[in-house]
């Protein structure tokens, strides 16, 4: 099952009628501010593709590109069933306005959760098959033969007995007139017949990314455009009390000073951004910092510690009799684990360009959530969404930060004050670092029991999180597939004034560290090998019959049974153990660490190798990854996602930490929020164990969460400290070649 099911013909006609054209919009497409013909005889066939007379096929993409390669993968999925000649495939983002006008025909546009492929694949493959069928039917009519005598391949329909052939370009106009076949009537290819899916074709978006021509949000240029810089209340929730507008207005190029409607920010609009930024800096601004100005990280952590006392807010899992098992245990262990707030640190600072006229609005934004951005913009413009156009640009890093639309609202509010003049709002790095939506901090206490043979008999996990969102405070904690008879997971959640949001890895990046660290500690305490312990606990025959999944209530998921999940996780565990040479001797000062991760129908295991030099420095030598996302659309790009996940996870493990001081974020830029650099990047080896079963998983996130505990376990294995709080640089150990510890 997927969220985006293929639409039936009836649905299609109904939504097409709503879309303003009535029948198929042949040869027409919606353009900003109106409707224009495709150039030079190009024809749109069933919403998804535009075919040019030279057989070039442009495939429309409904997932936003932020470097994960989704434009390429989405196109591969549709092109496979379309039988398109890949060498003549181009891509373009869908028009969000058309999508909304036509009844959300393109399925899910929100781009998050490593779910682009898994949630879109059925819709795209089915749509491709529907369009292929339309070409074949058009050819059958043109040639006066039966459909069954025709074969479609490489964008050509061939009459097998006579060799007569018609290209998709020649057939496009006729194909667009063929009634769209019912999605249930088209047959999808067996995976063994795939040629485009599973091929490591070049990414379609890379040429513009090596010559400077790709247009990110920050690069948008609209005629007559002005530039805005902004000052926001340093303490979250503070309000503007006074500002010296004259100091800004007297400066070169400055056009206007705009106080935003909620008084949480003030903007300066100027001819150039440097002028606007300099004017903001020159302007004296006084804030009412509100009641949060006395809060700091120590107070937040102390509040979380209180969460270990008293009853939980919510029981997430309660198998067996945890208290009884602990009472009768041969040994018990208890440990607390802490993970800090994190900022996404996308290298493109937040920005958005907007134009608001009397009747319409137009927005250019790097966003992961185009439909939400459109709603936000409409509200800020004071108009219905139907009056707006949204252009999604290239995105200079998303990582979840661009699932929020705060910067879109601001840009439209400023443009509304500048009615008729397009305005590009650009945040500074400091604005971006200090006004984020942070991966929340979290505190966990694990109590566990061992019997006399070193078996884990009880697992009690109490979470205390300054977060009320279960994707962030729960995911990864209660879905453990381990054969532990007595397991309790419970949550105390407290809201905080620090804005929180989704970040690559979400809750798994917290609870992966907690659970995989605790398991490693239990293995050591029991005198067992961590791999052997994991393998024993992931016995499909002994996995509990019911194990929660990391899904939200009401969310449709693949219905994998716990024993299948355990079997797949154990398979990647075995693979990573084999490929990493687990158990083979390492030299002095060297160590290995292991972690596994299940996330949204994807299964990963990671082994990290480190060297300690005995003087307080360590080096990550090698990261071995085994993964089972069931299918791969583009293996080379999937490997890039694994490499990127390793870098992202290592940054969080070694460096990442946002702290709160006097109610505000203490860090401001990359000098005090360091990230992994090229010298610290280890060798990454990726191995796939593809189960090729229904239930497609993702590749962009799970390794982020697994590499963190694999690293800290490796440091311990090498003779280093047991790391129970992140980042590692706060401990008496630092990364070789890295920056000085903070």
């Amino acid at each position: 099952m997927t969220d985006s099911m293929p639409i039936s013909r009836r649905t299609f006609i109904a939504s097409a009628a709503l879309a303003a054209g009535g029948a198929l919009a042949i040869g027409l497409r919606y353009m900003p501010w109106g409707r224009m013909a495709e150039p030079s005889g190009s024809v749109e066939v069933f919403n998804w593709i535009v075919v040019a007379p030279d057989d070039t096929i442009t495939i429309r993409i409904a997932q936003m590109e932020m470097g994960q390669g989704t434009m390429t993968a989405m196109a591969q999925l549709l092109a496979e069933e379309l039988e398109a000649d890949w060498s003549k495939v181009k891509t373009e983002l869908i028009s969000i306005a058309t999508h909304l006008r036509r009844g959300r025909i393109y399925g899910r546009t929100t781009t998050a959760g490593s779910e682009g492929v898994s949630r879109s694949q059925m819709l795209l493959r089915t749509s491709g098959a529907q369009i292929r069928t339309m070409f074949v039917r058009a050819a059958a009519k043109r040639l006066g033969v039966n459909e069954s005598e025709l074969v479609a391949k490489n964008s050509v329909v061939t009459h097998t007995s006579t060799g007569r052939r018609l290209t998709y370009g020649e057939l496009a106009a006729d194909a667009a007139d063929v009634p769209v076949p019912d999605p249930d009537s088209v047959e999808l290819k067996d995976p063994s017949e795939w040629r485009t899916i599973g091929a490591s074709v070049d990414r379609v978006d890379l040429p513009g990314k090596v010559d400077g021509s790709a247009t990110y949000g920050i690069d948008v240029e609209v005629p007559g455009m002005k530039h805005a810089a902004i000052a926001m209340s340093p303490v979250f929730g503070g309000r503007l009390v006074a500002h010296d507008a004259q100091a800004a207005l007297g400066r070169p190029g400055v056009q206007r000073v705009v106080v935003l409607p909620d008084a949480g920010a003030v903007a300066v609009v100027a001819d150039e951004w440097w002028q606007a930024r300099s004017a903001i800096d020159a302007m004296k601004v006084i804030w009412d910092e509100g009641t949060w100005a006395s809060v700091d990280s120590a107070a937040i952590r102390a509040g979380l510690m209180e969460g270990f006392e008293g009853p939980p807010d919510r029981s997430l899992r309660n198998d067996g009799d945890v208290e009884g098992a602990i009472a009768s245990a041969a040994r018990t262990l208890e440990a607390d684990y802490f993970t800090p707030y994190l900022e996404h640190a996308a290298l493109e600072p937040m920005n958005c360009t907007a134009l608001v006229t009397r009747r319409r609005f137009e927005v250019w934004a790097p966003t992961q959530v185009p439909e939400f951005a459109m709603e936000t913009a409409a509200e800020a413009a004071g108009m219905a969404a139907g009056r707006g156009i949204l252009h999604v640009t290239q995105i200079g890093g998303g990582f979840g930060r661009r699932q929020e639309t705060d910067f879109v609202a601001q840009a439209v509010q400023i443009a509304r004050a500048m009615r008729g003049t397009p305005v590009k709002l650009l945040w500074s790095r400091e604005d971006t670092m200090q006004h984020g939506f942070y991966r929340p901090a979290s505190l966990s206490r694990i109590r566990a029991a061992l019997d006399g043979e070193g078996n884990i008999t009880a697992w009690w996990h109490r979470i205390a999180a300054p977060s009320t969102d279960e994707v962030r405070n729960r995911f990864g904690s209660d879905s453990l597939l381990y054969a532990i008879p007595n397991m309790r997971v419970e949550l105390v959640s407290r809201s905080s004034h620090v804005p929180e949001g989704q970040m690559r890895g979400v809750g798994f990046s917290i609870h992966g560290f907690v659970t995989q660290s605790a398991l490693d500690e239990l293995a050591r305490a029991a005198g067992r090998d961590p791999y052997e312990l994991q393998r024993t606990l992931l016995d499909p025959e002994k996995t509990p019959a019911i194990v929660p999944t990391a899904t939200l209530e009401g969310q449709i998921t693949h219905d994998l049974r716990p024993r299948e999940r355990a079997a797949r996780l154990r398979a990647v565990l075995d693979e990573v153990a084999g490929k990493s040479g687990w158990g083979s001797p390492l030299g002095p000062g060297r160590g290995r660490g292991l972690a596994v991760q299940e996330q949204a129908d994807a299964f990963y295991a990671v082994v990290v190798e480190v060297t300690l030099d005995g003087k307080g420095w360590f080096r990550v030598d090698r990261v071995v990854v085994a993964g089972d996302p069931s299918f791969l659309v583009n293996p080379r790009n999937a490997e890039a996602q694994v490499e990127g996940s390793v870098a992202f996870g290592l940054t969080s493990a070694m460096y990442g930490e946002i702290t709160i001081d006097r109610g505000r974020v203490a860090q401001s830029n990359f000098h005090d929020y360091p990230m992994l650099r090229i010298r610290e990047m280890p060798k990454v080896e990726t191995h796939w164990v593809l189960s090729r079963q229904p239930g497609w998983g993702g590749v962009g996130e799970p390794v982020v969460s697994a590499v963190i505990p694999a690293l800290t376990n490796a440091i311990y294995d090498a003779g280093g400290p047991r790391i129970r709080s992140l980042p590692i640089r706060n401990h008496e150990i630092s990364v070789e070649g890295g920056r000085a510890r903070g």
Partner: protein
Amino acid sequence: MGDQVIRLTLNGSPVVVEAPGDMPLLWVLRDKLGLTGTKYGCGMGTCGVCTVHIDGSAAFSCLTPVAAAAGREVTTIEGLSPEGEHPLQRAWIAEQVPQCGYCQSGQIMRAAALLARNGTPTREEIIEEMQANLCRCGTYLRIVRAIERAGEEM
């Protein structure tokens, strides 16, 4: 603080700009001259996405006052190769380096300055040079491979 008239050579052509002398070269390139391939990331020389060449050497354009570029040769990603066919650009495609791509103009410019003075850098020399540039997507392994590939080709 009035504007100064500053003459420099940009991507091989003479250019005259009027700007405050302390305006960073980055913003002159982006907002006055329309060359947006050079990016803004941190404004303090810690990320390298603004890297350009000044007289052939890699420089942070965010930290370079435009007055300091007067009379000098500035090269941006747009001017690295007329057709985008510099060996590094071809190698970047061959190795499928970019993810989001935002840092890659700066990465390529720094690598180009390295190869211009040392056509056969060792892996250690590559890492030493490229340490200045951040990539949040984590494309580092492919960056090293692409520089090695381009070095062999040159």
